């Protein structure tokens, strides 16, 4: 920061230690755990044809709390036979009830679901935090309200489809198979189910293996809303179950959110099948900070971009591209900010960074961070204390990163930021686009013309300007290149769930 340089030189000459801030224990916050009851059962069955039923095979799997590694519940494990049962139920519902219902009646169900979700918001927030490891303040202030917002938004479209696509006659696609990831279990469910139902489709959805609980709790809401049996079916399980869902012959459309690796397998599988497909895959977003950016707010945005949900965000701003002239100042501020991030018990209302979702993910993060160190990048970790039990990782940043490092190319999906520098606008664009992914990007500058230029030139589905990680049901979200295709949210998202003629 430019203040009178004369003074600073003097203080250094006199050999005084550099001034430091103390983020210590003078005023520790007491534990403030969210007390709402998540109302979890010890056992969850599959939700097929409007009822909870055990898997045909009788098999179950355990789901745990990644914050303390304790078991939360046993969940029925669906195999191909269960998935088939779900698709048959969905087809029956589709043909006999749902496609015949006028749009405004479908809208009523969606409104009812949205309101019930709001009624039980705290309960769902706690369940989401327990099962996924995200901080309760995020589940409470982002995941659950945003999930409800998607149902409200699409409830509004249900009887207005003709206006969404003027001049075309709109019909539902049919039964859709949907597979969602573990980073935003309830929100991704809402992104998938709300537009599908609004457009008159029926659904078979598979939540992620590590986070099935809020999806199965959501099935309770569907019962409470008296949604006709079979319109939504939820089958829990791992990769095999997912494969059965996407390859089922009754699936007229497949929607998948998850890793690029699995996305490619699905696309290969569906090639030539005539099924519609949308994929929302990985990302390695660049957050580009120019020298005229308001530094303090840029730091806040960068922190929010990479440490939100422990970095388990496909659009996380995991590459920080900073203009050379301000790199030192920005990194110094980032390090300072990292020290006041509170890492720990996800249920504590003061926790900023919660638990890593699973042991496997924690190991993947560790492996990539080790590769960063090995390839010569400089590591900085927040000095925070971590809980003894549970899967935790310190907020981390790497400087001296070059474009060829694995940490600059591969999606880490954890709280790890790679800092690179650039000199000119062209170099910034070139580096930002030099990736297999293209989901999101951020630009930080006070210059409006530069924002518009970069919004056009950055190959990313979303470009945020002077902010990051902002979502709205009206705004389409999706990727370029190996980040997938198709959009979710807005009129564009709805278009993927209808046939037009």
């Amino acid at each position, binding site marked *: 920061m430019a203040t009178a340089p004369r003074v600073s030189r003097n203080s250094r000459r006199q050999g005084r230690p550099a001034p430091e*801030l103390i983020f210590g224990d003078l*005023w520790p916050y007491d*534990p403030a755990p969210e007390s709402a009851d998540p109302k979890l059962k010890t056992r969850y069955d599959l939700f097929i044809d409007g009822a909870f039923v055990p898997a045909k095979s009788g098999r179950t799997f355990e789901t745990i709390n990644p914050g303390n590694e304790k078991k939360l519940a046993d969940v029925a494990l669906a195999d191909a036979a269960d998935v088939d049962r779900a698709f048959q139920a969905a087809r029956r519902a589709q043909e006999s009830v749902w496609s015949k219902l006028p749009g405004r009646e479908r809208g009523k169900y969606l409104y009812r679901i949205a309101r019930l979700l709001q009624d039980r918001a705290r309960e769902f927030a706690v369940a989401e935090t327990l099962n996924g490891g995200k901080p309760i303040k995020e589940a409470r202030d982002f995941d659950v309200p945003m999930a409800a917002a998607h149902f409200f938004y699409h409830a509004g479209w249900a009887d207005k489809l003709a206006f969404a696509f003027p001049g075309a006659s709109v019909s539902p696609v049919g039964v859709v198979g949907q597979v969602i990831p573990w980073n935003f279990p309830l929100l991704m469910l809402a992104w998938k189910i709300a537009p599908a139902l609004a457009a008159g489709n029926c659904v078979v959805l598979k939540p992620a293996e590590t986070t099935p609980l809020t999806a199965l709790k959501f099935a309770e809401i569907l019962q409470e809303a008296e949604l006709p049996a079979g319109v939504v079916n939820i089958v829990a399980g791992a990769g095999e179950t997912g494969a059965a869902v996407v390859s089922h012959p009754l699936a007229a459309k497949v929607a998948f959110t998850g890793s690029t690796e699995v996305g490619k397998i699905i696309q290969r599988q569906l090639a030539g099948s005539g099924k519609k497909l949308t994929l929302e895959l990985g990302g390695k977003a660049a957050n580009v900070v120019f020298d005229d950016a308001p530094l*303090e707010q840029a730091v*806040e945005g960068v922190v929010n971009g990479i440490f939100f949900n422990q970095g388990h965000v496909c659009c996380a701003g995991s590459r920080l591209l900073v203009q050379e002239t301000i790199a030192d100042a920005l990194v110094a501020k980032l390090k300072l900010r990292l020290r006041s991030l509170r890492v720990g018990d996800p249920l504590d209302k003061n926790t900023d960074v919660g638990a890593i979702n699973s042991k496997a993910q924690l190991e993947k993060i560790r492996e990539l961070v080790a590769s960063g160190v090995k390839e010569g990048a400089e590591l900085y970790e927040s000095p925070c204390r971590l809980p003894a039990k549970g899967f935790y990782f310190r907020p981390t940043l790497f400087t001296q990163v070059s474009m060829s490092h694995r940490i600059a190319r591969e999606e880490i999906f954890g709280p790890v930021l790679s800092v690179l520098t650039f000199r000119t606008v062209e170099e910034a664009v070139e580096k930002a686009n030099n990736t297999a992914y293209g989901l999101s990007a951020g630009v930080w500058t006070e210059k409006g013309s530069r924002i518009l230029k970069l919004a056009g030139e950055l190959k990313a589905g979303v470009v945020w300007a*002077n902010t990051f990680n902002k979502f709205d049901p009206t705004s389409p979200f999706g990727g370029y290149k190996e980040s997938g295709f198709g959009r979710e949210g807005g009129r564009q998202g709805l278009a993927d769930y209808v046939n037009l003629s």
Partner: protein
Amino acid sequence: MPSAAQGAFRRLFDEIGSVDAVGLEERVAKYGTRSLKKAAKLWGLNRAVTMVDLTTLEGKDTPGKVASLCAKALHPHDEASVPPVAAVCVYPSMVRHARRALGERAPVKVASVATAFPSGQAPLKTRLGEVQAAVDDGADEIDMVINRGAFLAGEFAPVQDEIVAVREACGRCALKVILEVSELETYDNIRAASFLALRVLRTGDFIKTSTGKTGLNATLANNQVMIEAIRDFYLETGRAIGMKPAGGIRSAKQALTFLVAVKETLGDAWLTNARYRFGASSLLNDLLRQIAKEKSGAYQPPYYFSEAAESY
């Protein structure tokens, strides 16, 4: 070609950087979501009491009223464990009454607004005379206002020269420089004015948001701009300047949120009344009410506390 004023602002902004209003307000909203329980809450409430500059700045102030304010400042509550406040803040004419009421080696300091508070619209000589009078009458701290007219015209040198002149007149008294943020229009300007003041202040001096006499006073956002300026200046120069938000902080909850901002921006070293103050009057009673509630587990009847600062 930009005008001289424009040029002056541009050069200063280039040096110290700018503030994005949307991002700033988003940031400070997060402080309000911190949940303070039990010991943390009680510590924060007690610490906030020790940071209060108990203030009366009315035309109708009398020596008697100032004396009762001083009594309240020394013993805010029947409960002996509640500490005294940091200072009483009065007009220069009341300084000697406050000094008499508090005694010489009191744990509570006497602060006096001076320099033609709140407008500052008097000749410099008059303003310096006022400062001198307050110092002579026994003030420990002087709260001055900056020359907003000169600042907004881009004439930064006179703004700083006046602060230096007052600083000299203060002698050993601590100086608090009021920026009057509501008249500075933008967060960029608040940051700029903070730096102008910081660069001519001594360790132990303060910058302060407002006089409390205009529409908008201390908010979390302008508090944040100023403590970030203090932090940046400290890291660059090693000179630790204090901060005093004033006006508009009435509830204990608000005060705790301001302290959270201090803790997470400036760190532990600023969680003391040597470096952080609240300019307030009705705040004190709400702090006491909440302290009593934390200790007894229940709210006391409302008539145990007075809402009106006049009735101390």
